[in-house]
């Protein structure tokens, strides 16, 4: 298995000189195993992946897209993914089953008038939607896929992709597990994070245990580290975490390399360098820490 990172940014894409190294496109990661191609999230990085697939001789024409959740930054690359406009491509799209709208309707309503000039019905590729659950486990080619719930408004999935030799775990959006418990309803933010009642605290502890279990022994853990500690206490209701929180999960799960992910749009390359340096100094021996950078290839023995 190998993977390539096409988008690292959270919230919205940014085009600026001070984000060139870590990248300004929103979340998208390509995973390859035995000429099987699995795409994690459809942020603006997906546009670049589409161009690369069209250039690649013998590229797989059947692709699996695993969506963590459908907040804008995770789907806005989808209609700029060139293969969907070509016949002969097939895309299996996986995402969380919701009560309020189907996955197909959620994507269809984001496209088409009055938000976008192209509708789902205009696409030439064959699209198949698969609604999955928290805890779903299935196989995609040579990879075993499992999901857990991340702590994020309206719920998001986290994914584990495992081959016989490698494990990649993708948790792009999650708040920590000691303050706000997110679910399908909006959390009224009262101005300061505080532990909820006993039932909420137990639910958070259970969610944390499931995420650690999902990440167990991962070669690569891509994990939400959007905020600094100072930002987190101001914005706990957005459902994102910090680099310290990401490292604690990585250490608890015995991960080989933690890649800080879902970078805040305002965060410069220099600031990310400093965050990585601080985490490396704090990390338990044996844990590698980096910040995900656009274009990076994840290949064991090759990184």
């Amino acid at each position: 298995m190998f993977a390539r990172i096409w988008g690292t940014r959270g919230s919205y894409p940014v085009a600026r000189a001070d984000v060139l190294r870590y990248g300004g496109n929103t979340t998208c990661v390509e995973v390859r195993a035995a000429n099987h191609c699995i795409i994690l999230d459809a942020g603006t990085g997906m546009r670049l992946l589409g161009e690369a697939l069209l250039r690649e001789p013998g590229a797989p024409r059947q692709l699996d897209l695993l969506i963590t959740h459908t907040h804008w930054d995770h789907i806005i690359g989808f209609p700029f993914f060139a293969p969907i406009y070509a016949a002969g491509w097939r895309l299996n799209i996986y995402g969380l089953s919701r009560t309020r709208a189907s996955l197909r309707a959620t994507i269809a309503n984001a496209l088409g008038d009055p938000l976008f000039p192209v509708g789902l019905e205009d696409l030439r590729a064959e699209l198949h939607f698969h609604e999955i659950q928290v805890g779903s486990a299935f196989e995609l080619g040579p990879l075993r896929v499992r999901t857990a719930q991340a702590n994020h408004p309206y719920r998001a999935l986290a994914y584990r992709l495992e081959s016989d030799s490698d494990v990649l775990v993708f948790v792009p959006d999650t708040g920590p597990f000691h303050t706000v418990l997110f679910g399908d309803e909006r959390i009224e933010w009262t101005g300061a994070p505080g532990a909820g009642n006993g039932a909420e605290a137990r639910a958070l502890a259970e969610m944390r245990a499931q995420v650690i279990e999902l990440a167990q022994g991962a070669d690569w853990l891509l994990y939400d580290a959007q905020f600094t500690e100072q930002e987190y206490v101001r914005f706990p209701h957005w459902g994102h975490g910090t680099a310290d929180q990401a490292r604690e999960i990585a250490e608890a799960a015995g991960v080989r390399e933690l890649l800080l992910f879902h970078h805040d749009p305002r965060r410069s390359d220099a600031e990310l360098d400093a965050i990585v340096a601080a985490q490396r100094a704090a990390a338990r021996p044996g844990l590698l820490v980096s910040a995900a950078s656009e274009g990076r290839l994840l290949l064991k023995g090759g990184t």
Partner: protein
Amino acid sequence: MKAQFWGVRGYVPTPGAAFLRYGGNTCCVSLRGAGGELLALDSGTGFCQLGVALMADDFQAGRGELTLLITHTYWDHFLGLPFPGIVHIPGNQLRIYGPDSARGPLEMIYDNMLAPVYSPVFGLAHIAATHSFHPISSEPFQVGQLTVRGMPLSRRAQSPIWAYRVEEAGRALVYITDARYTDDAIWREAVHFARDAEVLIHSAPYLRGEAVRDYGHSRVEDAIELALEAGVRRLYLYHHAPTRTDDDLDALVARCRGELAADGQRLDLDAAREGEIVEV
């Protein structure tokens, strides 16, 4: 008034080294009147960068006032609106003008965009700044000493597109994007609308000869012909295609200027550059 470009790219943002000089954020231009009036044209991802800049201003304290003129609600013109901190600070006031769609009023379109499946905001009711929505019409209106006029460019009921003309003390800036000059009537109206403008900002993603998938955009040549016919002084090519690198845009500008000079035309032409301030 002073205009400033915050996003000049069309379709999709293009981060990366090849796009730094002209910029990769999507459509947004701010306007500042002599009396301090603040307007913005469109809210693509450039609006997020404008929002960061405005945090140094009254907006940090919840005393900011902004009039936002939306041409249409496609992502590259609208989707940046919910992200900057200024819209999440109580007390700030956003007056948003734009077209209603046959699918529903602008306010409803925005509310749907903030639905929990798409946004952690959970709907317009939960956004902290005061937002008021005003369907645009052909009736001119004032923002302080600035006069704003709108003109419908496309009558497609599902996704209507409007152009704007902002005047201060007899000088005008005209903003036309995603135009579809499908008939002579629209063309003549656009010429009339842009008449004698000091500055015309016009989408120009491709040349006529370029074979591209196209959703009905006017071409570079249309922008130039409109500027010439309307007697515009300065034309900014805008809404650059995501494939156009900085070098491509340099070459495009050089080519267009060369052709204008060969024709003996005195139109000032440039490609819009993120960050550039234009005195109108």
